[in-house]
């Protein structure tokens, strides 16, 4: 499947899907509410067959008050790659978990919760992955302050 009709097929799935610009690979933006259904289609559709989730991470934009969630998908059968991005608000970061589709999502999502504070609905075992359970704050947020961390003297 050539890239542009892959994007066309992907955009045709859901209403709020749009091509994401400024990316060196194929990427689409999705509305947070329709994410789970959209991902389920991507996984089940034999034409797309995105059966591997390379990685799931997040990017914090405090200025625009949103946390962007990045899903990087790959299809081992069709050998094509797609990046799906969606955004949640910073103060109420909740989104549905895709761990029912790909098992590895369960642990990537735990890492994103641990470092960004994004809550996943329907996640079987949501808890901190790297830090202690009683750790205050989410370190990878841009406004994370910590008296233990040394800033480099400029």
């Amino acid at each position: 499947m050539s890239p542009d009709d892959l994007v066309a097929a992907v955009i045709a799935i859901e209403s709020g899907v749009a091509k994401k610009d400024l990316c060196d690979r194929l990427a689409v933006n999705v509305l947070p509410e329709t994410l789970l259904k959209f991902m389920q289609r991507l996984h089940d559709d034999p034409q797309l067959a995105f059966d591997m989730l390379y990685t799931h991470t997040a990017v914090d934009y405090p200025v625009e008050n949103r946390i962007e969630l990045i899903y990087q998908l790959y299809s081992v059968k069709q050998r094509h790659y797609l990046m799906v991005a969606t955004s949640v608000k910073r103060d109420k970061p909740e989104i549905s978990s895709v761990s029912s589709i790909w098992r590895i999502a369960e642990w990537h999502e735990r890492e994103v919760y641990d470092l960004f504070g994004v809550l996943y609905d329907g996640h079987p075992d949501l808890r901190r992955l790297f830090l202690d359970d009683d750790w205050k704050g989410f370190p990878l947020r841009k406004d994370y302050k910590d008296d233990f961390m040394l800033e480099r003297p400029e």
Partner: protein
Amino acid sequence: MGVITEKLPIYIEPMPGGSMVLTSMDFMINWAHANSLWPLTFGTSCCAIEVMMAAGASNHDLARFGAEVARATPRQADLLVVAGTIVKRMAPILKTLYAQMGEPRYVIATGSCAISGGPFVFNSYTTIRGVDQLIPVDVYVPGCPPRPEAFFYGLLTLQRMIKEGETVRKPGIRRKPVMAALPEGITIADIQAELAALLDRNATVNVPQQCKERDLDEP
């Protein structure tokens, strides 16, 4: 490989059936401790490969110094080699392991992560900056990772440290042989004086003046 010749403080007593070696108990115990340090397998990151495994393997043989028996439990180990970064979550575990080791226990902090936090000093919310905040450290081996030979030099320094100072009545009190590493005739005062002189003389680099001093013609 040159045999390590040390002045052995022993006195040979000729006896009818042969001769008997008399020596002080401290020396015998320290000699036994020093030449059979059993390290605990405790490698957290990159230094573990270089300092624990490569040094213990066939090419740089740790067995030459009697320390190749790497024990897994702290009960049977008397040398804790901290090889790698210690983060906040690992700190209580390192303290528990150190506490659970038998009494004549020694610690070598290898790698700049164990000495001062290494490349993760700035902007890291978990890295402990230096293991000596957690446990008493005997020998520091700098490097990132230090070469196996550097680790051997640290081990030999620890062995000299054990043989020189420790006595059975006051376990755990050892003299650091840093002074012993100075060549004869050089004292700390000389070094400080030289450093002070160096600092103000070389505050600026004046190439033309140094070329004239060494009467090199101008480039």
